[in-house]
């Protein structure tokens, strides 16, 4: 049991480190903006620290009322990513609203410019 627990902790450590490396690489290549990388880096760092701190995990398991510290780790991982996804859903929704308003404004401005051009042409012809 302890061996399986160690293996799981090692896997989480590796995945967390991988997540941090990928996010940092994406930042360096400007594929992700700094403000949107913070959630992922915090999540990766939190899980990395947790996976290396068995005492904290045992304490967490006691707090959550589960026997297995590994279950506590899975619960925390799930909660962290759920929070990150929720935050990004809000951001995407705001961006979509802004994008629609901008597209409509661009179309209306384009329409008004064309109307002004037509008026100017009609004025010159008259």
């Amino acid at each position, binding site marked *: 049991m302890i061996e399986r627990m160690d293996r799981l902790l090692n896997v989480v450590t590796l995945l967390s480190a991988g997540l941090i490396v990928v996010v940092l690489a994406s930042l360096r290549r400007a594929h992700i903006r700094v403000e949107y990388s913070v959630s992922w880096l915090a999540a990766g760092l939190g899980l990395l620290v947790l996976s290396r701190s068995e005492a904290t995990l045992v304490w967490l398991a006691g707090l959550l009322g589960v026997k297995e510290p590994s279950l506590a780790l899975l619960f925390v991982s799930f909660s962290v990513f759920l929070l990150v996804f929720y935050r990004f859903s809000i951001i995407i929704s705001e961006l979509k609203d802004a994008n629609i308003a901008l*597209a*409509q404004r661009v179309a*209306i401005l384009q*329409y008004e410019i064309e*109307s002004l051009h037509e008026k100017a042409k009609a004025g010159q012809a008259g």
Partner: protein
Amino acid sequence: MRHPIGPDSLLIIVPAYNEEGAVGEVVCEIRQAMPETPVLVIDDCSSDCTAVVARMAGADVLSLPHHLGLGGCVQAGYRLAYELGYQYVIRVDGDGQHDPRDLPAIFRALRESGCEMVIGSRFLDGEENHTSFLRGLGIRFFRLVLRPILGRPVRDPTSGFVGVNRAALEVFSRSFPLEYPEIEALVVLQRKAFRFLEVPCRIRPRRAGRSSITAVKSFYYIIHVLLGVFVNVLKYDGRRSRRR
């Protein structure tokens, strides 16, 4: 486009996405039915010649820079109409299903009833066979859902043949449901203590193109609209005193 003149200024908007096969005839029919009324086709970034065909038929065209979907497309028309100062707007779909000969009746109802929204209804004649079996079931379902929310029956809650006055235009130019907007728009207006009226209208088969609501999307449609109705009921205080 002619700028609105007088207290009864009306703009007819035609949302269209890849409707080059139908939109020209729709515009011509509108111009025959309402010769003095400006027609604005809102082209939702079609990949075909919808905008060109609409212009050739005599409409003004508002071209969206990318595809927004029906709600975003209609709202763009409402925004422009509101900013230009129009008092009334009637929406006619670009697929040719709405008969423009019904426009004068909708406009008359808008002006004379004082209602903020007038819906061209397919079912006021008692006939229920104007639509497919599945869609008919959906319409019956939403009638039942909307009855207690609206406090009165609505025969054709999914109709897009809709006229609004300036008060409703102000609301919709600020906020309008993005996908499948008809039912949600009805709830938004009702929760703001606005009134609606249904008048009989004819419905025809599509001239060209395909409906955006396929059989697969029907289930998503029902869930999406139910959620939208629920959210709008929560968002606005329906107990607010009526304006009139």
